């Protein structure tokens, strides 16, 4: 059978004939639709169905919940589908067998499977069979609201003893949460915020340091940006990382000045950047056509004076001191004697008056910074790049930045509203129904590629996994960013791309490009160790019907239906040399997953 076959909305009948045989089943109607709780129902009407006949879905024996003459209703878990396609096999005791491929419908859905898949690439760590149905059932906005309420995934408890402070359990838990956790959107946003408010294990490499920091990001992902600014500023791990903890006021007699590290980075990398921005993210230009700086060295020095006088929180059970020993739970506390109480001129002529406490100075400075017109476009650009596309149009940035500036209730900095704006914007959703312009999309960063592929394959993942070392070999050693500038610069422009942004390309090197393909190999050929189980049965079943269906399942499940015939042909030709459907499923999955048509999501 070399002809192309299309799967239409209802069903496709594929009857395997080995000559006309008695006991042959003829399907008259075949429908599949998603129920709730991760199951779907197959209803078929057939002639020639014998008593004791078996209806199998996904190659496994499925529960027959009702059987009457000619009509069978079968319930199966949604994981027996791939890309919304399932294989139904009806086998009579006398031996006649019929197989059909059916697309699972979602009754009442206004969202197509392609749109749902694209959406979950942006709003989750990629679609899983279950989440695909859920989005189709709820629609985007209700799914997002449900995500706002989803229980938080946590990190392991911090060990007491010094010898057990490795970050490996945190790295492993990150992937466990990504593949299994319910709070998908929160995790994506928290990870995006981590890549802005970077803390690196290269300097703060103990679990007692990283865990509170990561939990804070997780907790504040849907809060207000000003709250995030304040909590991050007072986070002891951030204080250690950027030298704000135990930073004291100047001592001119000794030539000591406050440390400027945090003051510089909070402006440059966390809130406003180095040049003034329009609402749409483009740089403001002066009369000579040059960008306008946001701050100068004086601003940094004065902001450094603001951030003086903070020390670690007191360790429980020990008396508080002017300089507390290292302790990472809670917020830093102020020792007023070490705080510079002079007047300080900050951005744009704003002056903090003399004589204030450390906390008042900090609040005033952060509030003023928060209201800088740059913050909206700054945050908008970064969240859009993290979730949707590396090169949003200025109009898209402006729309999201406007929501940052004022959500529907007039509140500034509401991350829930900003995230909704990022995901529901027409530019984010355009690709649901049509091809995007050539510069669209972004390369999945290693964590997203790894978690996304496993979710798409419906893989099961245990906590004791080896995924962190894969991410590291692809250039993203989780929680060990090379510097405060993140695993890769959020402003990276590949030299070959003529001015386009593509941050993730900074770690796409000759070596990591191969390692990505090798990861696809490891997934498909079960080389990820006992912690990962990938069940290719749905794909094997599709291959057993016809290899075209295998490519079509992968097309829908991994490429949102945009596999072109050139790619399909290459895969089909390769499959001609492979006899066994299991081996075919592996080979075809490898070819799609390793391709950059999958790894660049668009």
């Amino acid at each position, binding site marked *: 059978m070399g002809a192309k076959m299309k799967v239409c909305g209802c069903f496709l009948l594929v009857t395997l004939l080995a000559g006309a045989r008695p006991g042959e089943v003829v399907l008259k109607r075949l429908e599949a639709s998603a129920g709730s709780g991760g199951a779907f129902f197959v209803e078929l009407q057939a002639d020639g169905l014998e008593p004791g006949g078996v209806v199998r879905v996904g190659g496994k024996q499925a529960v027959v919940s009702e059987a009457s003459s000619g009509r069978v209703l079968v319930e199966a878990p949604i994981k027996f589908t791939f890309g919304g396609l399932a294989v139904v096999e009806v086998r009579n005791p006398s031996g006649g067998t019929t197989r059909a491929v059916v697309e699972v419908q979602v009754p009442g859905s206004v969202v197509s499977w392609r749109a749902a898949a694209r959406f979950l690439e942006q709003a989750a760590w990629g679609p899983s069979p279950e989440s695909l149905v859920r989005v189709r059932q709820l629609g985007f906005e209700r799914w997002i609201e449900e995500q706002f309420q989803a229980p938080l995934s946590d990190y392991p408890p911090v060990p007491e003893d010094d010898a057990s402070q490795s970050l490996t359990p945190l790295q492993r838990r990150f992937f466990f949460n990504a593949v299994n956790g319910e709070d998908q959107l929160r995790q994506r946003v928290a990870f995006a915020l981590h890549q802005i408010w970077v803390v690196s294990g290269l*300097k703060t*490499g103990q679990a007692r340091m990283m865990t509170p920091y990561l939990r804070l990001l997780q907790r504040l992902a849907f809060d207000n940006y000003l709250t995030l600014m304040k909590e991050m500023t007072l986070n002891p791990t951030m204080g250690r990382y950027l030298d704000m903890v135990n930073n004291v006021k100047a*001592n001119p007699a*000794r*030539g*000591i*000045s406050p*440390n400027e*590290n945090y003051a510089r980075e909070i402006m440059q990398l966390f809130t406003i950047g*180095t040049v003034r921005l329009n609402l749409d993210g483009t740089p403001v230009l002066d009369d000579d056509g*040059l*960008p306008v*700086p946001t701050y*100068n*060295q004086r601003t940094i020095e004065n902001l450094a004076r603001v951030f003086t006088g903070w020390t670690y929180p007191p360790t429980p059970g020990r008396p508080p001191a002017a300089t507390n020993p290292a302790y990472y739970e809670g917020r830093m506390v102020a020792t007023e004697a070490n705080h510079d109480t002079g007047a300080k001129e900050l951005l744009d002529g704003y002056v903090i008056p003399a004589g204030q406490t450390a906390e008042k100075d900090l609040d005033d400075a952060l509030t003023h910074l928060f209201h800088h017109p740059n913050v909206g476009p700054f945050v908008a650009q970064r969240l859009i790049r993290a979730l949707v596309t590396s090169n949003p149009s200025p109009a898209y940035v402006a729309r999201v930045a406007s929501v940052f500036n004022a959500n529907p209730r007039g509140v500034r900095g509401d991350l829930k509203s900003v995230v909704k704006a990022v995901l529901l914007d027409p530019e984010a959703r355009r690709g649901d129904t049509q*091809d995007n312009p*050539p510069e*669209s*999309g*972004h*390369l999945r960063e290693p964590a997203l590629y790894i978690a996304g592929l496993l979710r798409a394959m419906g893989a099961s993942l245990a906590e004791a996994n080896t995924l962190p070392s894969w991410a590291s070999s692809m*250039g993203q050693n989780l929680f060990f960013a*090379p*510097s*405060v*500038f993140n695993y890769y*610069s959020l402003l990276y422009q590949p*030299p*070959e*791309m003529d001015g*386009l942004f*593509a941050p993730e*390309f900074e770690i*796409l*090197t*000759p*070596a990591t*490009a*191969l390692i990505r*393909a*090798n990861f696809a*190999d490891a997934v498909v*050929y079960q080389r990820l160790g006992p912690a990962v189980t990938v069940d290719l049965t749905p794909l094997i079943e599709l291959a057993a019907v016809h290899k075209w269906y295998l490519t079509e399942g992968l097309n829908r499940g991994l490429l949102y239906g945009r596999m072109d015939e*050139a*790619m399909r042909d*290459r895969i089909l*030709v*390769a499959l*001609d040399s*492979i006899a066994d459907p299991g*081996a075919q499923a592996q*080979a075809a999955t*490898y*070819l799609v997953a390793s*391709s*950059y*048509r999958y*790894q*660049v999501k*668009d």
Partner: protein
Amino acid sequence: MLTRRELFRFATAMAAWQRFARLPVLAQGDDYRALVCVFLFGGNDSNNTIVPLEAAAFRGYQSGRGTLALTQQSLLPIEAQGTPYGLHPRLTEIQRLYNQRRAAVIANVGLLVRPTTRDEYRQRLAPLPVNLFSHSDQQLQWQCADPRGDARTGWGGRIADRVAQGDFAMVSLAGNATYVNGERVRPMLVNLGAPTSLTGFSNTREHQARLQAFLEILELEDQRILVRTANLRARQGLRISQVLTRLLTGTSPLKTPFPATTLGRQMDQIARLIYARRELAATRQVFFASLGGWDHHVSLLASHDPLMSQLNGALGAFYQATEEMGLADRVVTFTASEFNRTLNANSNAGSDHGWGAHHFVIGAAVKGGMLYGTYPVVALNGPDDATGRGVWVPTTSLDQYGATLASWFGVRADGLRAVFPNLANFQPQNLGFLD
């Protein structure tokens, strides 16, 4: 200091230049140069690497080091401008190269903001590098040439940015350390052992059919710019993987034997890559190798010994290989480490974190057989001792050390100021140990 506007103009101009200058500049003749940084992670105890043998100095050494002192008979004698020193007993090759004037000692070099005296340190009268005795901070500062440790590029990468082109301009055998990252240059990361290659394909018909499809899919036209660019990089990855596999596995084209140690194997790989420089279209290269384990808080004498031996064997073989290739005057190898260690012992017969350290520079272009900089007065609470435990306030800054190397490598004066922002605080800016 450049204003942001000037920086922006510079960046735009640089971007244009970079696009224009993507073709490798193959100079007339063999105008090849390579810098090889060997980073000793952990803080090498320089006090036992080069020991003063002048009578009073050696007494100060013995008295200060106590149980950590090496015996005079065990040390390998060298002479620096008339003053006797002794190298660690295992540094036989380095002694030989030093006596042949192919190696030099750079004394008491470390991170400084500006020239600093012991009293200024003790009375907190001078600005100091941040977190002076912290491994991570000092490693970062050594690699970035930034006493604040803020820079996200290393001076190796910044040198390569200015003088080198091509995929192999900056090569690291020790991972993606900050040292090897420039503004423009991305390091070629070479693993010890098999180079990164595509896995999962055997010679069966099935696998070859899949491989064929994989390669063809990488060549497919695609409207999407990001897909096209990624495909390009992946194809480049395959090519480089094949080249590196050919060059770095199997028998070396060089006859010089290398020790099969961690550092020996890295130096072997570097030598093979230098050998293949024309094929790799490389005329200027910066290499980064490393050896860890130098953090000798416990049992210094016993633990230091095998590492010194490994260092000696690897550096000796590497120099020999450069002679074999006729490039001995084109390659300069230099050591680096985040700090020295205390002169005196702790309670575990080890030494703790120090500051100013002594390093070796090796190559036929080195004006060797000499000591550059000022060897500290080896005495607890002496004029060079910052803390009372024999922690030397550096008298030569990392910036001067690096700038001398960079200048030989081809970075011009204005480039040096950009690569080493702190260099202006120090004189002389070129220490003069290279031709």
